[in-house]
């Protein structure tokens, strides 16, 4: 469903993402791990069409992000690190706007918005102004705007950052639910970035770990933790190995 082929992003001299390739199958939930500044957000921005890669490309569904950018963008629901919200709009009006922007046919918009409101537990606040909502609710509106056009692919950049433990559990529950197909509703393929490891253990089937712009681990979660190893150790080893190598170089 998602195929990244040698994605690279250069900012001047800095190579933020270096030749990252991976494949995500339909219905899979992949945890995108890495320390802060590893290149997670940049990679996601390339997948969603916000930033063009300096090198390499990606295919979303059947659409190449360079050759059919509109089709590729249509297939993705994206929750950036800071949810993109218009504080002066009400929840319902905002979702209606996002649905229209994402080419939901006019007469399906009402249903699409209702479904997103219901799935994200926003039905009670649908007429509230977004700016007046709590942080947890705003995060949910962020998720709702990503799923309102029922995209096959969801890209979520640190969806639980800054939330309290109960809100975190709710958002995780919501993501797990989105990945599981329900009657009549499509299963989403999810790429989720985080640096909270229990989050990955709770909802992801596979882990892609990047460090300093490079992919260092890409394995199913079950395999990684098969011999009783803790994800924390895997993470520490993978990121330390790189630091050691660098020290050796120097």
């Amino acid at each position: 469903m998602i195929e990244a082929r040698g994605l690279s992003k250069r900012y001047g001299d800095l190579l933020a993402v270096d030749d990252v390739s991976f494949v995500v199958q339909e219905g899979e939930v992949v945890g995108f791990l890495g320390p802060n500044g590893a290149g997670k957000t940049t990679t996601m921005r390339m997948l969603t069409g916000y930033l063009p890669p300096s090198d390499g490309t990606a295919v979303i569904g059947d659409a190449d992000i360079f050759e059919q950018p509109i089709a590729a963008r249509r297939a993705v629901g994206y929750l950036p690190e800071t949810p993109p919200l218009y504080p002066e709009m009400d929840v319902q009006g905002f979702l209606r706007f996002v649905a229209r922007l994402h080419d939901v046919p006019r007469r399906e918009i009402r249903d699409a918005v209702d479904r997103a409101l219901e799935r994200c537990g926003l039905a009670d606040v649908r007429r509230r102004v977004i700016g007046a909502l709590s942080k947890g609710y705003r995060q949910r509106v962020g998720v709702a705007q990503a799923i309102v056009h029922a995209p096959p692919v969801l890209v979520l950049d640190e969806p639980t950052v800054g939330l309290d433990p109960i809100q975190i559990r709710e958002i995780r529950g919501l993501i797990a639910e989105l990945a599981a197909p329900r009657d009549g509703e499509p299963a989403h393929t999810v790429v989720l970035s985080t640096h909270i490891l229990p989050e990955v253990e709770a909802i992801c089937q596979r882990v892609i770990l990047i460090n300093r712009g490079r992919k260092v681990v890409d394995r199913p979660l079950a395999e990684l933790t098969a011999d009783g190893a803790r994800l924390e150790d895997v993470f520490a080893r993978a990121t330390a190995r790189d630091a050691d190598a660098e020290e050796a170089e120097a």
Partner: protein
Amino acid sequence: MRHAGTIAGRELRSLFVSPVAYAVLTLWALLGAFFFLSTLVQFQEILLRMQQFQMFDQLRQMNLNDALIEPFFQTMWVFFLIGVPAVTMHLFTADKANRTEELLLTSPATIWDIVVGKYLAAAGFMVLMVALLGFFPGLLFAFGDPEVGKTWAGLLGMVLVALAYAAIGLFASSVTSNQIIAFFLALMLIVLFLLLSLIGDLGAASGFFGMGESVAGVMRWLATAEHFSRLTQGLVETRDLVYFAFIIGVFLLLTKASVESVRWR
């Protein structure tokens, strides 16, 4: 281009939940009323003087269009200098503050859709402002007989100049993430376009900057005032319409390039 409509609708709705729209419209209406009355009083005084001094030839040439409506439009035009940037300053800066820029740029809408959508919203507001102003000369039709065509030409001039300034303001809001900077940048660019003819005259007369007559000519052509004045005088000429279309087009293209540059930074 369907997305442009969606974006324009959202912008307009947001504009009308913010106090800026109401503040600008209220102030605009009050200023309009004040200057309309003061121009009217002046007009009457001139008439009175002319009668006193028995200047019947001049008196015969006095008419509502040249002596009242045109000066009124010329005065109100000055307030576009701050009114238009006040309306356009948030257009792109708000999206940067809300991070909704990311939402727009990762949606199936193209950059043209976004730029044109936001411009249409601003343009709609400008038309509303000028329509509001049209009320005052409209009053004259109830009590006098101004020329219909000339009045429309003046209103057209007001709309076109506001649309041109809106394109400049849109561009200014796309190059910065700060509303205040966007406001002053728009103001500066608008003033620059006002002063261009003076700069051209000065350059040609003094030979500064090695400026020849041809460069000065281009600068004079680029200046807004002359094109606008001809319209308020009731002269609708193609060259002036081309001028406004040119300014709007250039600034929309610049805005597109500026928004696009986010991707290539």
